[in-house]
């Protein structure tokens, strides 16, 4: 009886740990919830949420480029050059301008090197920024909302309809993203 119990218990423990290992392994490289501290505590909630600045005003690359891009400081200064409000972080920004050094932001959303992702392709197709980045306008510090796994990408690619045969929408070809 005891031997049976021990056997069963061992089996269960083994199974559970194997499951845990398998789960952990499947999460290798998945950084959902990653929200690093930035050199300047820029709040998207304040800018995109409260002040309702359009995403593409700063991340203008998303329209035409593969990269959405972090805005150059001259874009920040479009407004901050005129606004009188001061804070520690705005001071930091102005100091960078004076020192002529760009800010070294920490990249939140990272894809592996073997994946090609193009922002403009998705923006033109009418995918909202929030679909992948979550409600950024509510985030004081940006965090990675979606898992950014291939399964998560495919989910969306599967569901989107082919509207025009000549400009096909999302499809499931491997070569769409991997080359």
């Amino acid at each position, binding site marked *: 009886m005891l031997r049976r119990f021990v056997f069963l218990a061992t089996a269960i423990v083994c199974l559970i740990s194997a499951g845990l290992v398998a789960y952990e*392994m499947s999460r290798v490289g998945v950084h959902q919830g990653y929200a690093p501290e930035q050199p300047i505590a820029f709040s998207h909630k304040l800018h995109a949420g409260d002040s309702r600045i359009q995403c593409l005003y700063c991340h203008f690359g998303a329209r035409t480029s593969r990269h959405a891009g972090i805005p150059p400081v001259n874009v920040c200064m479009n407004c901050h050059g005129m606004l009188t409000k001061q804070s520690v972080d705005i001071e930091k920004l102005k100091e960078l301008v004076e020192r002529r050094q760009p800010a070294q932001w920490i990249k939140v959303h990272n894809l592996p090197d073997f994946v090609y992702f193009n922002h403009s392709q998705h923006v033109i197709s009418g995918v909202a920024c929030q679909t992948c980045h979550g409600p950024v306008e509510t985030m004081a510090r940006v965090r990675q909302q979606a898992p950014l796994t291939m399964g998560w990408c495919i989910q969306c690619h599967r569901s989107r309809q082919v509207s025009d045969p000549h400009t096909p929408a999302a499809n499931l070809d491997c070569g769409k993203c991997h080359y």
Partner: protein
Amino acid sequence: MANDLTFWKNRVHVETSREDLETNRADLETSRRDFLTRMGFVLAASALAGCSRGAVQKAIPFLIKPEETMPGVATWYASTCGACSAGCGLLVKTRDGRPIKIEGNTESPLSGGGTCASGQATVLSLYDAERLKGPTWLGVPVTWQDVDARIEERLRAAMAGRHNLVLLSGTIVSPSTRALIAEWKARVPTFRHVVYDAVSFSALRRATGACFAIDGLPHYRFDRATTIVGIGADFLGTWLSPVEFTRQYARRRRPDAAGVMSRHYQFEAGVSLTGTNADHRVPIAASQQGAVALAILRRIAIEAGVETGAEQVDGAIDEGAVASAAEDLWRHRGASLVVSGSQDTATQIVVHAINALLGNIGTTVDIESPSLQKQGDDRSLAQLVDEMERGDIHGLMLYGVNPAYDFPDAARFARGLESVALTISFADRLDETASLAHAVCPDHHFLEAWNDAEAVTASYSLAQPAIAPLLDTRAAQDSLLKWLGKEPDFYAYVREFWRSHIHPTDARGRTFDELWDHALHDGVYHRDVPAAKTPPFRPSRAFTAAWQSAAHEVGGRQRSSAAPAADRYELHLYETVAIRDGRHANNPWLQELPDPVTKITWGNYLVLAPSLARRLGVESGDVVRMGIPDAQIELPAYVQPGQSPGTVSIALGYGRQHAGKVAYGVGANAFPLVTSFDGERQYHRGGVVLQKAGRSEPLATTQAHHSMEGRPIVRTTTLSALLSEETEARPEAASLWADREGGPHRWGLAIDLNSCTGCSACVTACQAENNVPVVGRDEVLRGREMHWIRIDAYTGGSEDHPETLVQPMMCQHCQNAPCETVCPVAATTHSSDGLNQQVYNRCIGTRYCENNCPYKVRRFNWFRYAQNEAFDFNMNNPVGRMVLNPDVTVRSRGVMEKCSMCIQRVQDGKLLAKQEGRSVADGDIKTACQQVCPADSIVFGDLNDPESRVARMRAGQRHYLVLDEIGTKPNVGYLMKIKNRSEA
């Protein structure tokens, strides 16, 4: 229409030595203990990987973004190639400020969108880690102020003392630079400019001056020629302006489009790229070029009813071939062309006479707007070296030349250099000559500099920087301006030159700024030559006298040359398509580019004919000691059918000692074997003794098997058969596979084997575009080269008159792909656009696909080639990696790769269409191999669109699929090769 030729197998015997195999085996053996150790490490590492986050990545924006750049979007700059003096128009693709790819400029009236392999590879030379970081004085790095002060002080002293100053340069096709040099001459009375080319054209230049009284070379027009005769001129590979000539030549090799097809005779000693393309190739000894030219002249003169004054010479030349060539030339007089690579002025005058008697002057030989390439004058260099030895030269500036390497008596040049008080080199590295100079003032790479070019009179081209100088270099012209006491701003100088010299002749009534902006945008500017019709060329009495005396001279020389002794051979020196005169030696892409004819990489070798090899008892790979009275050279032999039996060939440009670590120790330098005759450099000589050295050195070849094994892989037909035959209805073979569901597109390629010359520019273009790694000589010897596209050469027929057929071969993107069915992890799949895709992150490296591919186009990453000390090429240093295309993955070890049909370009084309709200138009997307092709032989497009160019080519009579019978249904198709043989 299958081939009736018997093709050879295995001409090259390549075998890794048994010892190597044994050591390799020992490396591979793993004990149980090792296995457990590694297993444990792997488990621990994966557990750790699971717990840790990836390294923190930073995103650093511009502080103030320049208006014209957008991160992630390519910016293109029109420029001019600096790889040789042909000055082809370029478009330089820059990503995030880095030039990453060179493409031909379709606006260029000369090169028309084509480039060559070495032009393609020059973008890698920009990131050469061996470039000098800044100026040096006596080998020690100094600042520009310092070096300028030292040089200016000495120059002032030299000018005050009326000492001789010389600028020794290669051909300068930049009119602004020439103007600057003229200014030096005007300001400094003792200043002189000496020009020489390592591979010289001075005899042709001298002959052209004597016949037509022009200072230049004729501008040849192969596109107007129905009969072409080449005498030792590799005009499709290395001679004068190969890209332009290939483009012109290919236009007359498309009979279904043009209605006519040129017939090409080639008389040559070694087998050149041009020779493999000829309809009739006749091997001649290197010394017989004059005899062939004279024999043709005699026949043409008889037809024209002119007296040649030269007697009949009984030479060992093939009179039948000469007769049929002369007959074709005469039949197409006015639309025929004879060119010769001879360095004998009399022979070149004879060739001019043939063209003149045929009425080709003004049609195929344009002397109205001469070519300004190859301005070198061998005699003035010889004179300069004499003066240097005598100590008459006080200051010497070396610009774009490396005489300590390529002057035949380099030691004498170096001795002469010692007596020069001030030597300044503008070289970008401490090469053979620069390391002997007092000051090295490194010039910019051409992609960093402003410049202009006028390779053919009135066809201008501008070069603009595509990147800010990477290193502390300065344009050579800026240095020259500075030392002349002027503002060192060559940009302003070029602009001023254009304002004062080019704008006034502009016929379109634009302001200078308009003209400049247009020229800078387009990259090229063509001055409209006034339409005043010049009278057709009439041979003057002086011209007739000149060529008659030249003919007499050539005839006399042929007669006097005694029959060579039985064990004395002739030597012929040639340039390879990749390395050329040695200037590209440190470029790993070019070192690994298989030679278009021999398919050998990494090094030069002694080419000999099969009959000679039998007589000497050598096989390919056996080292042969070649002796001439004053030098000896040891090189592995390569047995080449079609090689003239009495002549051995060696490529120039190898054996560089100070070019950098890529070039170091690769091949042997053949420049010391160059001789001089009548003041001109000669690239052939007699009296060569050959001897087996008794050891062997394997040749790193990428193709050792040249037989099609009876299968119609390259199909040929004759022109008459093509013109008479009706389109055969090809029966559709029954397939075991269900038809694929068609997507909106089906991408495909059509490759015209008739216009393809095999120049291999596509191989380098693909390498640049797709981050294809360089693997090095040892790995090539193991058959592990990584090129996604290769040029297969099949050689057959008789040993002396072989026929070579070339075929670009890459992934055929089969509709029923054998690779896809055997992949256990579905890492290679079919896309809805008809492409066969390879997914690197899914591949586990079983290599089943490679084994099951009937076309053998898949490449396996046996190692990690990037950031690996064992593969110390461009991908192993941070500067060299700047050339990588950020849109293409750098593959890791253990995965399979192959041609993706430039899927990143397909995606880009589709995206652009999407951004503009339209569908993809035919011609929007060009693969890298298509874009580079000077012959326009490769066409990409949508096979679903019956109006697309590729679909129309596919519907044509000449179209076929390789290995059609196995039912793979490739999306890559070929158009048959046509041989336009004379019936006689």
